[in-house]
């Protein structure tokens, strides 16, 4: 079965905007961070190469899994990969390098003011979110300033925030591996494996989720122009504080028993559960709004392009899968593939409409939907004639 060519291709040049100041600010900060923190990290990595190799391999796997999850969450419009890379690199390079400096100062301050007992228990909770959450979130702001037209809805901010958080988390985990391996009296490999597994099972995706929430708020403030300025600012601040609070809770000794052991794992699981619930609620809001946008954008399209039943089928990933399964039951595997293509083509029509695409582009998107329908009809006709379902 030949694939119908895509009507609207992903923009390739959304990032190269040398006439925007943020482009140069971004490049300058990435360059500075690489020249300072990057060089330092390479030097430190050379002290414990075995641990670093193990950490990088594990982090690469974690990174791919979380990246796929983020893409999976983005139902109605996949963000351009180049812009996703901008957010990721910000988190991995600029946010990490700056946070390393800021955390050193902040932890030192907590230690001086509170003493060892307070610092040991509370410094990570005080310093971590204070520096890291804002720095990661700046990645979303940079993306918006660089390519404002790419951030149309709140969920886009969640995606870019999650990617900035992902970049941060992966580099932070490699740094943990270096530090632990250097202090391990026995083996670099054991230390690399231990920290990689610990970060895999404890706090998996913590930074993407915290920054995803805050990113949702920032995008809300930029995109929900139907709300008052104070409403938008209020939501952005609340969601930033939610991400901040989750990070604080995770790093803090709250809900953590004094004696380590199984109960420590239980408390970590409880904290992680709270984080997951908050993140899911934020995502649900973003996804619902995405669907409202899609329904509003497509409301005056003819049933030839989108029927009411197809509109409902596009609401969630589950309903989309169900629609494809039904098509597969009726028309076999090709029917399922065609249903999949039809769903993508219908989304492309909505995107072309939203972006005020030239009429010929919108027309091509609609033609694609019609072409898929014709193919489906051609496929179904002989089967029906043969008395097959």
């Amino acid at each position, binding site marked *: 079965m030949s694939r119908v060519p895509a009507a609207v291709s992903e923009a390739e040049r959304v990032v190269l905007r040398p006439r925007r100041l943020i482009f140069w600010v971004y490049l300058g900060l990435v360059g500075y961070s690489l020249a300072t923190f990057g060089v330092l990290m390479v030097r430190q990595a050379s002290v414990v190469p075995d641990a670093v190799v193990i950490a990088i391999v594990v982090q690469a796997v974690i990174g791919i899994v979380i990246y796929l999850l983020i893409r999976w969450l983005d139902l109605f419009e996949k963000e351009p990969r180049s812009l996703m890379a901008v957010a990721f690199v910000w988190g991995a390079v600029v946010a990490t390098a700056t946070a390393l400096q800021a955390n050193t100062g902040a932890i030192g301050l907590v230690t001086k003011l509170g003493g060892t007992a307070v610092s040991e228990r509370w*410094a990570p909770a005080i310093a971590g979110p204070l520096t890291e959450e804002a720095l990661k979130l700046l990645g979303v702001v940079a993306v918006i300033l660089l390519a404002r037209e790419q951030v149309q809805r709140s969920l886009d901010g969640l995606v870019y925030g999650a990617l900035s958080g992902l970049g941060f988390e992966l580099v932070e985990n490699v740094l943990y591996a270096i530090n632990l391996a250097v202090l391990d009296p*026995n083996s670099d490999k054991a230390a690399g494996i231990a920290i990689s597994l610990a970060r895999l099972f404890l706090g998996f995706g913590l930074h993407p989720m915290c920054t995803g929430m805050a990113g949702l708020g920032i995008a809300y403030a930029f995109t929900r122009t139907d709300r008052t300025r104070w409403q938008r600012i209020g939501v952005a601040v609340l969601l930033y504080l939610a991400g901040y609070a989750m990070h604080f809770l995770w790093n803090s000794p709250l809900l953590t028993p004094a004696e380590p052991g199984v109960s420590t794992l239980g408390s970590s699981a409880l904290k992680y559960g709270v984080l997951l619930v908050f993140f899911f609620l934020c995502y649900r809001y973003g996804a619902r709004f995405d669907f409202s946008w899609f329904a509003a954008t497509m409301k005056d399209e003819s049933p030839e392009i989108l029927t009411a039943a197809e509109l409902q089928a596009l609401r969630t990933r589950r309903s989309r899968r169900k629609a494809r399964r039904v098509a597969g039951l009726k028309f076999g595997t090709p029917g399922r593939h065609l249903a999949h293509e039809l769903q993508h083509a219908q989304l492309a029509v909505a995107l072309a409409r939203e972006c005020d695409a030239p009429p010929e582009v919108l027309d091509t998107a609609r033609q694609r939907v019609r072409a898929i329908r014709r193919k489906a009809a051609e496929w179904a006709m002989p089967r029906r004639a043969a008395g097959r379902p």
Partner: protein
Amino acid sequence: MEYDVRSAETLRWGLERRGQVGALVVLAVVLLYLLVPKAVNAHVHGAETTVEAGDHFMLDAIGDGSAKLDLSALAGWTLPPSASDDSVLVTRGDAKVSMRLVGNVRNPALAFDRLPRVLRLSDPKATWSRTGEFRGHRGLTGYRGEFTTSTRTGSLFLAGRDETALFVLVSAPSSELEDARDAAETVLDTAEINP
């Protein structure tokens, strides 16, 4: 999508006017985080205490093990607050004695070769060597050695029992090094380690 149909761009310094304030805010916030916490920390004086004869200090290793240190030999030195309870730093001018309690030390000789790598994190030219064994009056055993970095020289000790050991780094100007080393060795000799 790239259907960003913009009106004629207003330029300033050859750059679009739109977004300039935002970009400068991003830059300012990053600079703020780079500079302010360090600067504030540098200007705030913590509750440093002066070590007096008879002072004791408790260390807890990550995992199992604890140690009680008698700091009498370091009387007059300064004890700044420590960020973690597995280590302590004592200073006097440019002289420093840092002590860290390490658990899970299965092979002390290997641990002695590995732990000084912490020096290489900040100085790739750091080198160290073992110069002999350490045998304390309270049954602690281990090794002693020396290290050199680009800027300083110093002494190393690793001594303990039953997989829990104290790792001690002593650095000081050459005129003070012997005194500092003797004081650190005395603290190590009188340490009570509970694996």
